[in-house]
């Protein structure tokens, strides 16, 4: 069965999108025999966010993986925003936390900091996400919510223009959600943009909404 998509927000024409925007045109995703979605088009300008909702299996995660370059689209095209003053173009926070439980919290973040040439930012970012007290603790000792915070810190240290967040609030407590909202607002205020997925509509200030209807 072919999946469909619908949008509840006004979408700009992808062809005329500015260079600091994410422009998606007629994107389709097929897994095996099944089309998860077809003809998805939207623009996420710099400084804004798009919330993608939809039931389980509607292709939200696949959409993000395509935009991250981790999965090939069956059809259509997309153009990530230009990097501008940011270190990288795309940052990705997936379902899994990318946390090594045998390394300490500090070692986990330092590794990504090295790759992003941002080692000095390790401690300040751990403070921002509220993990500075656990710096020397093996990441395996953290709770699921704290590991999610560590995953968020791995996104923050990369300093990328486009954030792709796959159900970022999973396992976060209210404090963690507040940190996430704070960081999203900070990111948007610097001209960054974000695509966030969630199975249900969540509180996101000034965000466009897009619904993948699924089968």
């Amino acid at each position, binding site marked *: 069965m072919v999946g469909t998509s619908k949008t509840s927000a006004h979408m700009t024409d992808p062809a005329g999108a500015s260079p600091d925007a994410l422009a998606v045109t007629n994107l389709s995703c097929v897994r095996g025999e099944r089309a998860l979605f077809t003809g998805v088009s939207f623009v996420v300008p710099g400084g804004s966010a798009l919330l993608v909702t939809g039931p389980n299996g509607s292709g939200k995660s696949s959409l993000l*993986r395509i935009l*991250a*370059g*981790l*999965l*090939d689209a069956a059809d259509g095209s997309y153009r990530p925003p230009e990097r501008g003053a940011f270190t990288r173009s*795309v940052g*990705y926070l*997936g*379902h*899994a*936390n*990318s*946390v*090594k*439980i*045998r*390394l300490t919290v500090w*070692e986990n973040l330092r*590794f*990504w900091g*090295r*790759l*992003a*040439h941002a080692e000095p930012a390790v401690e300040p970012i751990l403070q921002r996400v509220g993990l500075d007290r656990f710096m020397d603790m093996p990441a395996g000792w953290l709770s699921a919510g704290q590991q999610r915070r560590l995953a968020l810190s*791995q996104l923050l240290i*990369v300093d990328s223009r486009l954030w792709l967040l796959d159900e970022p609030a999973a396992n976060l407590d209210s404090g963690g959600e507040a940190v996430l909202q704070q960081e999203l607002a900070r990111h948007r205020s610097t001209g960054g943009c974000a695509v966030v997925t969630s199975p249900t509509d969540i509180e996101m200030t000034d965000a466009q909404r897009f619904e993948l209807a699924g089968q």
Partner: protein
Amino acid sequence: MTFVRAVVERDLKLYMRGVVDLIGVWMFFGIAIAMLPLSIGPDPDILSRIAPGAAWAIALLASMLSLERVFAPDQLDGSLDLLLLHAPSAHVLVLAKGFAHWLVTGLPFVVLAPVAAIALGMELRGVLPLAGALLIGTPALSLIGTVGAALTAPLRRGGILAALIVLPQTIPVLIFGTAAVSETLMGRDSGAYFSVLGAFTLAALALAPYAGNAALRAVRS
């Protein structure tokens, strides 16, 4: 270069924090070498004749034991996605992973070569050629093994399948590695065998990143 160094250092740290698995690999090498004289008998003539081939075959099998730890843990915890996003290219990631695997499997076999040679009753003049051949040839084993590890990354307990895929590809390395040591022991010129062994490693160095990249793409789509 920063990427390769960071990935290799992190992988080494992770291998060492799970050192029990590694000790299992090194012990397999040592115990298999020690058991050979027990099963074949203590006749020094027979032992020294089969010693080069036995050492190579055991090193080959032992290096397959840890393939499961090359990509599967990163696939499981999601960090493979981020590594691919950060890597200058997937080819570089495959090289870095292969190098880290060689440092914890191939290199220890080179260090253990004198012990293996003595345990197998090899003449002392065969120790250096055995260590040299392992030094030249084992990087090819790790690089080819990395491709198999990439192909089986999403599979639970994919290490055995990886070994089954990889072992047939490593037969030339086994043949020329054994011949290089045997020819030296027989007093013949073994330079050509060492050269071919080196050529295999260089070919693996050139081709494994492309094969590994294709494998990662195939399993992730």
